[in-house]
């Protein structure tokens, strides 16, 4: 039944999808960059501001009670959504990028020293590279990079060959934002066997896969609300409670303290310890509402539906001999990077835009991967719960038109 719902009705839940681009219906194939929002989320933000708004946590008046409860309730929703064991394991940040920086800075201070090693992969997003580069630049941490095979899957043998007794942490994407490939759980098992901590960049997986951090047994998991049909300005860091308790604080300020004198301070317990200053409270609430919305569809249904749509599009695209796709992996979903032969990705994106189709073109914040693929840029079509096969067909037709437009000239 939910599968049927996905196939029919969801589009109407998203006001932005009724937009026309020039005179064409919008076909939004850019969910990997950021998802559109269902009206329940948009309205919830307005309702918070219009009826329950105040700063959180520090007052006794009614609005403050309402705002605080809404904010903390959102934390519970996130906790359940990824099956964390405790609310204390859910830290609200501004985006996944902040979450990764938080882990990088604090993890180094607690667990590492110069010469210790961190394993990343060659296909990481800049947001899962730069925070670790800083550790290399400033403290002499050594970074190693897992290679990928030609389908865009991490090379497990290569991974194992990188592990030494200096290795402390593995920080890798859970679902590639270029290939759509899903990271094999074995990588976590191997890490466990070698006593390595694991950070999963769940920016893409959180909206496409059912995530269970307890079952995955990762130590850290990060994602952003805006890719999960929630508002901008909100990110999440999941960390195992014992680890987060051990790590030092990150940003300092109001709300993250216990006692302060001019001589020093003691810090608040989790999760407040990592939430300095007024948090993105309405945004957190909006994310909670987005999670309710998705739960109502069922993440299993989302997974099935998007997988089918991705396979359908991949098949159709492989029938076009002028299209290069950059991953043929079967273990992938929702994201297809491609190029039209002899046509720059920007031309393709501009052409499609005029047809009403929104795709990304560029390096997708993965410049090192582009170098490996030996292209300056790719075009990327990415799907969300509101997309359908009809749109894929329209997209395929547009690719054909695009190809002939640029070939004829």
């Amino acid at each position, binding site marked *: 039944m939910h599968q049927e719902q996905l196939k029919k009705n969801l589009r109407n839940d998203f006001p932005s999808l009724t937009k026309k681009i020039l005179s064409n219906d919008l076909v939004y194939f850019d969910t990997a960059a950021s998802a559109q929002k269902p009206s329940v989320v948009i309205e919830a933000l307005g309702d918070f501001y219009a009826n329950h708004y105040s700063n959180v946590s520090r007052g006794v008046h009614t609005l403050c009670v309402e705002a605080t409860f809404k904010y903390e309730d959102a934390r519970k929703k996130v906790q359940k959504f990824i099956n964390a064991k405790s609310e204390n394991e859910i830290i609200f940040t501004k985006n996944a990028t902040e979450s990764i920086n938080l882990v990088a800075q604090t993890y180094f201070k607690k667990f590492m020293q110069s010469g210790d090693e961190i394993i990343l992969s060659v296909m990481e997003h800049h947001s899962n590279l730069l925070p670790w580069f800083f550790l290399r630049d400033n403290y002499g941490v050594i970074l190693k990079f897992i290679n990928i095979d030609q389908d865009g899957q991490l090379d497990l043998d290569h991974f194992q060959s990188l592990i030494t007794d200096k290795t402390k942490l593995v920080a890798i994407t859970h679902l590639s934002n270029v290939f759509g490939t899903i990271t094999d759980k074995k990588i976590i098992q191997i890490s466990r066997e070698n006593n390595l901590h694991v950070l999963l960049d769940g920016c893409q997986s959180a909206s496409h896969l059912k995530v269970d951090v307890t079952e995955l047994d990762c130590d850290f998991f990060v994602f952003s609300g805006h890719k999960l049909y929630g508002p901008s300005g909100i990110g999440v860091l999941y960390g195992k409670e014992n680890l987060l308790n051990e790590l030092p604080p990150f940003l300092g300020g109001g709300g993250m303290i216990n006692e302060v004198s001019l001589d020093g301070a003691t810090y608040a317990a989790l999760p407040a310890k990592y939430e300095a200053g007024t948090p993105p409270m309405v945004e957190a609430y909006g994310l909670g509402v987005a999670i309710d919305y998705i739960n109502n569809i069922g993440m299993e249904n989302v997974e099935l539906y998007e997988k089918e749509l991705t396979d359908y599009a991949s098949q159709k695209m492989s029938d076009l001999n002028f299209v290069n796709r950059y991953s043929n992996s079967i273990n992938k979903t929702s994201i297809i990077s491609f190029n039209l032969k002899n*046509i720059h990705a920007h*031309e393709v994106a501009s052409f499609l*835009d005029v047809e009403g189709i929104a795709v990304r073109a560029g390096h997708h914040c993965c410049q090192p991967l582009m170098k490996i693929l030996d292209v300056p840029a790719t075009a990327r079509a990415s799907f969300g719960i509101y997309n359908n096969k009809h749109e894929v067909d329209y997209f395929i037709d547009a690719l054909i038109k695009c190809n002939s437009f640029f070939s004829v*000239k």
Partner: protein
Amino acid sequence: MSDLLKELYQEIIIDHGNTPRNFGECENFNKSADGHNPLCGDKVHLTLHLDDDDIIKDIKFTGVGCAISIASTSLMTQSLKNNSLDYAMRLFEDFSNLVTGSETSLKMLNEEDSLYALKGVSAFPMRVKCATLSWHAFKAAINDN
């Protein structure tokens, strides 16, 4: 097929995009600069020879990028070669106005100029950077003594 696209990808653009003119490096260049658009990966390497009278005696480029940026660079080199620096700077201003849709303020460019073919960019605001990349590199080359 949309008129906007036809406007954007005029024959001359496709032509210069596929077979750019003045591609390479000047033999005796005394000015050079690299341009890079991090958002899309377009890159240009510009070399030029400016003589004592501030005349651009030679100008060439290498680079990778989309049709718009390659064509724009190619057309720029044609327009600048054998012209004065002063002329080039004034042309830059006009060109910026052209591609951002402020046509009414054009002082030098008109429909006869080959650069005018890039007018279609103004309907694609995110492509303006593609069209002006080489001009910014030119400016950087001049300012970099």
